[in-house]
């Protein structure tokens, strides 16, 4: 009863606040100049990024430096976790996992999630999505496996911490190479279109955007897998 009264009081306060606010609020109908510039130039135009998906174009082209160093932040965070946990003994617990129903369900859902994550990442320059989103979805699969089966099952299937580190390093190296390559041919750092082709064999690849998306997909997915593997270690250190 008390919860119900609190809830209705909050609802009333929200509606009253809306009534108080609504005369003062001017809804925005015009874009600001920057947003309009991005919308006009992302596919056509003089400063084109070659991508019909404006958000991805901003992320990897117009504001590419932002995202480059955002990736560096994520890189440093995972390197920090890896170096802290470096000497930790690799032990597994929950050797039996959940019931067979859960395991079968995780197998199906894991496959679907993997396909959806890959689709989200690889079509990131055409439809909403991209490397960050696809990578976060990809990282859900090992997490599900760890919870439903065990950490050991994941490692037995071949996805150990070292292999995840290798995948992640490949992704990050690809990002760095794709970002630095335009400097060699006389362009700018992270330059997109004249350096990289807009279309490849009749397929829209949007220059470097699809490369960045795939590499970021690998880097984010494998990076989160490392974190899940490390943090699912039970405490095995000395009793202090």
């Amino acid at each position: 009863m008390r919860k119900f009264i609190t809830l209705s009081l909050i609802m009333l306060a929200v509606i009253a606040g809306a009534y108080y606010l609504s005369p003062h609020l001017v809804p925005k109908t015009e874009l600001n100049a920057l947003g309009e510039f991005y919308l006009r130039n992302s596919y056509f135009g003089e400063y084109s990024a070659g991508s019909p998906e404006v958000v991805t174009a901003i992320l990897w082209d117009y504001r590419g430096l932002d995202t480059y160093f955002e990736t560096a932040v994520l890189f440093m965070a995972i390197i920090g976790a890896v170096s802290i946990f470096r000497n930790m003994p690799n032990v597994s617990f929950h050797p039996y996992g959940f019931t067979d129903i859960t395991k079968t369900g995780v197998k199906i859902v894991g496959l679907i999630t993997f396909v959806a994550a890959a689709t989200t990442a690889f079509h990131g320059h055409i439809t909403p999505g991209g490397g960050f989103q696809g990578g976060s979805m990809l990282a859900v699969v090992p997490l599900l496996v760890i919870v439903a089966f065990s950490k050991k099952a994941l490692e037995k299937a071949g996805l150990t911490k070292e292999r995840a580190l290798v995948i992640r390093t490949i992704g990050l190296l690809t990002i760095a190479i794709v970002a630095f390559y335009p400097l060699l041919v006389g362009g700018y750092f992270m330059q997109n279109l004249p350096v990289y082709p807009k279309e490849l064999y009749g397929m829209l690849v949007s220059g470097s955007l699809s490369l960045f998306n795939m590499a970021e997909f690998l880097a984010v997915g494998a990076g989160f897998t490392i974190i899940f593997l490390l943090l699912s270690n039970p405490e095995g250190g000395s009793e202090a």
Partner: protein
Amino acid sequence: MTFALALIVSSIVAIIIISLYGIAVRPNLVKKIICLGIFSDIINVAVILLGYRAVERPLPPVLTDYSQKGVEELVKGAVDPLPQALTITAIVIGLAITVLMAYGAIHIQRKYGTVDVRKLARWEE
């Protein structure tokens, strides 16, 4: 239209207050983590609301008709893409933070047998 927008704004404010209350007052660590997740999500919603346009049918900032006409329609109806681009990285970093805190809570539960901060701080023996 204005009232709906005002309702969204005032509910965002209410949710921010409620989630801050949950972070500060609730003694259960898991509930604190859930409230922090709600807090970061509602901040992202507020940032995306900044890019909203009150036009007839707002479009997502994705070009579907690859022609100049399509671009004109996009400029006429699409929402601002910049706040959406900024929230993407915030969501990924938020995921990392949530994972870290959740595993911290799991290990606290394993070691001390409770996630109640009052018991962890030994306020009530």
